[in-house]
């Protein structure tokens, strides 16, 4: 069989059982597993991983919620139950390296699980994509699509930028995706960015709570993003994706809210 035929017969997102020799595990998280909008982020990421020929696998039905929200809502033992189940599953498949597109999963896998014996190398998908770009495994070629010609800003997720210090990788992916635009260079920054970013309103279990419209953190933050003049708001977290999409709508704007991976697939025409 030629290499091409092989890749055709392989699932686009193989499970750890289908691809036991995987090099890196892609942790999907609950949002991309069940939320229709966030599912598109996972699909975009999978397209990019496939395009770069990354040997990865997913846990599929064996993945459970990391328990981040449970722990931060104060339910320590529910969190521990989920953490122990996930750590056992990860051990069963000898997982050492993980990529995740949800900063809450990244933080849980990196900082919560280590307390219960789960030690992994965890990368946010933007870090991994930035590596793929610099290694030349993903190549930016051709004309930039018209959809990416407008001003773009990036909202740093708290659990990524502040809590884990990851803020250059997403900018690197975005700036490379925007390269070749007429007139404008790179990402437009909000006043509160990187470690000083402001919350989307969904952390600490607030994702699961109702907020009166006049008190929505997401509306305020989306207002800051739109104040840059951006017509595209890039995010790096499925919670931020939901919150800022609502926030942009509450600001009566037609700006697009997209994950960094979606912007890169758009640029690559995938």
């Amino acid at each position: 069989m030629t290499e091409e035929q092989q890749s055709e017969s392989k699932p686009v997102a193989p499970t750890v059982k289908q691809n036991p020799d995987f090099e890196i595990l892609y942790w999907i998280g609950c949002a991309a597993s069940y939320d229709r909008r966030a599912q598109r982020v996972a699909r975009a990421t999978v397209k990019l991983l496939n395009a770069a020929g990354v040997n990865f696998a997913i846990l599929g039905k064996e993945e459970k919620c990391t328990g981040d929200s449970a722990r931060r809502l104060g339910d320590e033992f529910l969190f521990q139950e989920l953490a122990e189940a996930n750590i056992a599953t990860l051990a069963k498949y000898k997982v050492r390296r993980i990529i995740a597109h949800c900063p809450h999963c990244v933080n849980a896998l990196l900082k919560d699980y280590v307390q219960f014996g789960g030690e992994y190398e965890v990368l946010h998908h933007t870090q991994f994509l930035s590596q793929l770009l610099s290694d030349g495994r993903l190549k930016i070629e051709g004309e930039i699509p018209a959809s990416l010609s407008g001003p773009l800003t990036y909202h740093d997720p708290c659990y990524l930028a502040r809590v884990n210090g990851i803020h250059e990788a997403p900018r690197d992916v975005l700036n490379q995706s925007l390269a070749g635009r007429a007139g404008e260079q790179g990402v437009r920054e909000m006043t509160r960015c990187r470690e000083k970013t402001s919350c989307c309103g969904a952390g600490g279990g607030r994702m699961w709570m109702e907020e009166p419209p006049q008190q929505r953190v997401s509306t305020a933050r989306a207002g800051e993003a739109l104040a840059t003049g951006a017509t595209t708001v890039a995010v790096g977290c499925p919670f931020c994706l939901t919150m800022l999409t609502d926030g942009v709508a509450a600001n009566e704007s037609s700006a697009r809210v997209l994950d960094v991976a979606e912007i890169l697939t758009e640029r690559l025409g995938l």
Partner: protein
Amino acid sequence: MTPTRETFGNISTSSQVVFYVVAVASMAVFGYGIWRRFRLWRQGQSISLKQLATGTVSQIATKIGPGLRRLLVDGLGQQRVRGRGLPSWAHGLMFAGFMMLFLGTTLLEINHLAEMVSKNLGFHHGLYYIIYELTLDLFGLLFIVGTSLFFARRLWKPPSVGHRGTDWLVLILFLAIGITGYFVEALRIVWQQPTGIGAQCSPVGLWLSSAFRGWTEGQARAAHLTVWWVHALLVFGFIAAIPFTRLFHLIAGPINLFLSKTVLGQLKPITLEEAERDGRIGVSDIRHLTSQQLVSLDACMECGRCEDVCPAFATQKPLSPKRVIQDLKGVMEHLADATPDTPLSPHDVIKPETLWSCTACSACVFVCPVRIDQLTLILDMRRHLTSEGGLSGTAATALRRMQSSANPWGFPQSERANWVPESTSPPPN
């Protein structure tokens, strides 16, 4: 002639004796003030300080290294005070002036004690003297400028900054100490009549001394003694006031910097054994906080940075991280006259809505200059609420779904990979 001045020059022996008696008295008040807070801190959960000092030298160094680093970088280096424009400058100037004057006064005292042993042990002369006088003369100005900026800020009253009546006492005390210090120096120059470098090395004092041109030596000596006493009593008043005013952060701030082990995004696990032994989960009594957490409450200066960056506060929710710290501190203060059985629940003063408003974004922890961990305090209290079934509504539903379906949406586990694109070839078997 070597440039120098006599330590306690123009101060009679009887005055010196009274000086030392007052010094001991003010230190005693200072010590009592610290001890009364220390007694409160000790009622928290043990943080095993003894462990820090056990083991081989290198083991101890690894244990206390990070704390010392925080003291040097965050404390002496003022790393976390920076970034707020003028108030940061004000603190930096006041801090630099204060530390240098404190160091200078200590050296002067060492010199005085050394000279009591033997005149030959005195070191307050020559090149050392020139550098000493010049440094203190200039840093005194920084101290006064920094204090004046804070004075202006207190008049301005930014809403996020806490204000208490004693803040004025502290600022007036500081200004008075700085100004009388210069008068002591100027009047000493008038009666001592130093020449050459010995006079030039105190430029501010020398400039001020010109105001007393024409005074006789006798007049200058009398005025010098009076102002010297005023200056000394102000300083002793300041030392005694430290534990009873906002100045207490001079003590609690560095202790908290040394003890605080905050890692953003990480929480302390609770084991089932602990939960069974204690018969509770989380914090339902102020004594359930650790001693370090109690110290951190006293480290708070109410600078308001946490409140300024809090997304819940910004959207008119009932949460201010600063308020939470102050409320907890209020409960801690009740420990002073409580018996071990008196229940002192923080939940009596901090409402559940306040605790549920937090998005755990860590912004408050990130900006706190003295590394208070507001988030962990909030989550420790949430743990208690949740264990008592205090969470209701959609968030409680999400928790139940996480329990039953391992995801907060409550969809079946079997559908977890349904997002995988259609084009996927069917999995083998």
